[in-house]
């Protein structure tokens, strides 16, 4: 009788699994951990969800990159039909419309594409047209399928771009390199995750932001665990937080000048150095085991 373990199941039938790597604080090592976890897997999709300041491409250096323009609907006015009644501009919650005489001015970067103005216009002078929001880039880097997006400068909301990235998700393992903070881009990213890996540094700043992002993950009802990064001797407020709040600690990655240097050169440490390849492989297995211990959602 075979003992059916989750890792056996993986090699026969890859489980769909989406892991979000978060930190709350910037510079803690989200990208470091994300690119390395993706690189050591047999096959994985890496998605750079930090669409305002994407960095994953610097490390994974994807090839065969194809770009797809993502559009979003914006109103366009037929001035001949517009009589300057202002029903649209008064209704717009975002102040994206102004009326000078009978001329309607539309401010596309402020517009949130909700569609209300078009539905209200008594003269049917407003139609929806598709305008570029940003680009999604797809490529490959070794065994990693790479996805990232860049927002057009000035656009007000990047959330549709993250949704567009998620539509490209494939089966198997997906690693989401999340944006920093706890704002709407993070909540959008986390909403697509099965499991969250919280990366924390051993400073007061780190533990404070760990608390913030842990609270968010709990609010969104996602299972999670902590990875302590850049650890050194002495107290670790993040470790203390995890212990007092019963958050599983999957491991720690000590501060290491060699690793810092490799990362500063935008090299994927697990591809350069056997020690790190082995470390991140074990970490990936820990993450898989941890996420398996929660019921499928």
């Amino acid at each position: 009788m075979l003992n059916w373990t989750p890792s056996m199941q993986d090699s026969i039938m890859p489980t769909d699994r989406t892991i979000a790597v978060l930190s709350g604080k910037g510079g803690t090592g989200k990208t470091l951990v994300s690119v390395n976890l993706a690189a050591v897997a047999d096959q994985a999709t890496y998605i750079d969800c930090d669409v305002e300041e994407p960095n994953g491409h610097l490390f994974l250096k994807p090839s065969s990159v194809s770009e797809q323009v993502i559009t979003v609907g914006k109103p366009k006015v037929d001035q001949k039909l517009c009589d300057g009644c202002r029903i649209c501009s008064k209704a717009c919650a975002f102040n994206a419309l102004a009326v000078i005489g009978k001329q309607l001015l539309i401010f596309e970067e402020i517009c949130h594409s909700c569609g209300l103005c078009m539905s209200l216009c008594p003269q049917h002078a407003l139609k929806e047209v598709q305008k570029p929001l940003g680009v999604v880039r797809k490529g490959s880097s070794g065994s990693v399928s790479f996805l990232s997006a860049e927002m057009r400068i000035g656009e007000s909301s990047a959330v549709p771009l993250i949704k567009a990235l998620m539509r490209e998700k494939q089966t198997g393992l997906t690693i989401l390199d999340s944006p920093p903070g706890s704002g709407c881009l993070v909540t959008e990213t986390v909403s697509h995750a099965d499991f969250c890996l919280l990366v924390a540094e051993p400073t007061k700043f780190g533990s404070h932001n760990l608390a913030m992002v842990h609270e968010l993950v709990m609010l969104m009802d996602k299972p999670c665990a902590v990875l302590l990064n850049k650890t050194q001797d002495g107290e670790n407020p993040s470790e203390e937080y995890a212990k007092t709040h019963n958050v599983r600690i999957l491991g720690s990655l000590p501060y290491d000048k060699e690793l810092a240097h490799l990362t500063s050169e935008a090299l994927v440490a697990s591809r350069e150095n056997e020690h790190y390849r082995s470390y991140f492989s074990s970490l990936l297995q820990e993450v898989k085991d941890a996420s398996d211990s929660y019921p499928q959602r």
Partner: protein
Amino acid sequence: MHQILILSGKGGTGKTTVASTFIALSHAKAYADCDVDAPNLHLVMGSFETERKSDYFGLPKAEIDGTLCTGCNRCFEVCRFDAVIPGPTYQIDPIACEGCTYCLHVCRADAIHTRPVKVGDLKLYERKEERFSTATLTMGSGTTGKLVSEVKKQLKENIPETEVAILDGSPGIGCPVIASLSGVDLALMVSEPSVSAFSDLKRVITSARQLQVPVAVVVNKYDINPTICGEIEVFCFKEGIPFLGKIPYDKQVVTSLNGGENLACLNTPASQAIKRIYEKTLQVWKEQVRL
């Protein structure tokens, strides 16, 4: 109000460490944390005598009155933000709702109204003559430049006009950074010697220049990659940007900050470097203000 802003582009380069040291060295009475998404400055500024909190409201969000809802589904059909949750009584997800009011307009049962939603807290701390302005955003909110503007406005309204304020900025190049740059005399960029940080540094410098704010650069943890540090120095030279110094990686910084000690009181390699940089920054700032 005169303002010196500490920015970085990439997060985690040491803005708050440098800002808190500057505040101690200058005996500044006015300072603010503009990183409303993940504020950290308060963790190293000690305790204060009083804290004044005020609610910060964003766009009003939709709310459905379950007693009036007929379940006609029109709101669900028009909402583009996946904010309507159908069910025996329909509900609005306040995190997803963007406040566009489309649902309100289509509801025939008059069951939907908007309500003001608190999206953060504005805080003002006082300690003798010191005033520290900061804010926190509720999770899931879109980070707004407006809250950053409120943080600066709150500081300005509570300090004498002649005071120089030191502002701990936020990472990135989005609206909060743009809002923090408004009216600033000098933006000091704290970078680090990595490909990622260098790339982000260039982007944030572009934003600062668009707003006609003078910039200066320092590199933190420079010994992790002296080569890239050198590339940043050359870039600054070519762009006519003052390069004010390099700070070595210093394990002691972590221990001191965790212990609540300000680097201004220490004599470690990093703190010495920051002190020299502080003097140079003051110099550059004085030149800018005279212009």
